[in-house]
């Protein structure tokens, strides 16, 4: 069974978590999900599935934005 591990920020509600699982199952065919909470994410979620990482966390996006600012 293909299990996906979803790491969420503390402010992600069950409703939003269910929505993410439904879309992920439809898109990638995952059959089971494992939830984990990480306050470092600040917001959004990270999915680990089939050896791949799908990072949609605010921390990563802010870090990318910050790197662009420091580059200028």
């Amino acid at each position: 069974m293909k299990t996906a591990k979803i790491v969420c920020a503390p402010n992600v509600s069950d409703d939003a978590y269910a929505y993410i699982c439904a879309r992920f199952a439809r898109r990638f065919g995952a059959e089971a999900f494992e939830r984990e909470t990480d306050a470092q994410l600040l917001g959004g979620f990270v999915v680990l599935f089939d050896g791949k990482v799908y990072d949609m966390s605010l921390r990563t996006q802010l870090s990318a934005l910050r790197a662009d600012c420091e580059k200028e």
Partner: protein
Amino acid sequence: MESLGLDITKVPIDLVLNLLNIVLLFLIVRTLAYKPIRKFMDARTERVNAEARAAGEKAAEAEKLKAEYAALLENGEAVKQAQADEARKAADAEKDRILAEANAKAAQIVREAREQAQKEHDEALGAMRQDVVDLAFDISEKLLEHSITDDDTKKLADRLFDSRVGGEESA
């Protein structure tokens, strides 16, 4: 004549004898003394002439020396003037060299100071910029952490699943 104690009868003989004595004495003196005296006188004249010549030569030599000294003096003045000019020229050259060196040193100091100031300005600006970025992101993190909603999370999910790749990274 008696009052003088002279004997008249003898006077012509005495006179004659005296005269003869005188003549004889003269002849003797002339014979004996004339030549030496003549010689002496000639020698003295020769000596005087020689001394006169020597004096003349000395005077000429003195004159010559005087002329030489005058020339030397004049030349000395010229040499002294030339030396003074040479010394002044050397001093001027040294002054110019020192001035040029000082100007170059001053220019270098100014240039280094300017470079240092620019470097410190850039460093300060960079540090300040970094502080601003840090502050901005700290504030953004706090704001986002408390303001993100479920709809925002769902939009993140839609963005991931609608894009071909999404936030995919290798694990």
